[in-house]
């Protein structure tokens, strides 16, 4: 797993790539907790995410809760069909706004 952060306009743009599993999800959780404390608007690029298990979903949920508590916005984009299915099975698609690509997610932010 790799995590990379950029800025795009006033948004934090975070790319999570590779395999997010129980062995590395603590690293992701620490990163997202810190991110959630300092940012209000976050876009997550999932285009290179190959895999995510429940521990990774838990890390994303922590971030969502932090962002929602301060009235911010969190959007995910470019989920592969397999990853999208995991979100649906988990019910996470109901509260994570999911967009087809960066442009769609950015426009919706405005």
């Amino acid at each position: 797993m790799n995590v990379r952060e950029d800025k795009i306009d006033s948004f934090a743009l975070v790319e999570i790539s590779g395999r997010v599993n129980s062995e590395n999800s603590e690293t992701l959780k620490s990163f997202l907790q810190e991110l959630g404390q300092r940012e209000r608007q976050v876009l997550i690029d999932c285009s290179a995410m190959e895999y995510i298990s429940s521990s990774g979903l838990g890390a994303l949920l922590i971030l969502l809760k932090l962002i929602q508590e301060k009235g911010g916005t969190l959007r995910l984009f470019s989920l592969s069909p397999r990853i999208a299915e995991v979100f649906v099975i988990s019910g996470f698609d109901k509260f994570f706004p999911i967009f087809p690509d960066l442009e769609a997610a950015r426009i919706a932010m405005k």
Partner: protein
Amino acid sequence: MNMDENLEVKLPNSMAALNSLHDTVVQFCRRWTIHPDTEFKIDLALEEVFTNIVRYGYDDNRPHEIVVRLKGSRDSVRISVDDDGRHFNPLLAPAVDIHAPAAERPIGGLGIHLVRNLLDQVRYQRRPSGNRLILIKRLEKRGERT
């Protein structure tokens, strides 16, 4: 079906063994030319089962062995996971409310929900030496088999 098309792997109760578990699933699925979508589901379900055992299965700090067996047939994959931890039937865990809003969703507890929904059958057997979970995945995308 040849016996050598079955796979058995003995893993330590450590998260560091997750990569070996993943490698085993990949090796098995390549050998059986199982569709990548199905491989993804088996991989994910097995991680959830394995991490539940590692996290909650043992009351001591001693090393333990978790035995995973994968067996293919014409139309399904049968996996058994044996551990010598304390008796625990994960199928009795309370159901996850997937309609609850984010604020009411607990951070954990999703694992067994994913296992049930990614696979076709999950059975628990309590054994004198510990637990056995049997997982069945039907091979729907049969055209992929060669």
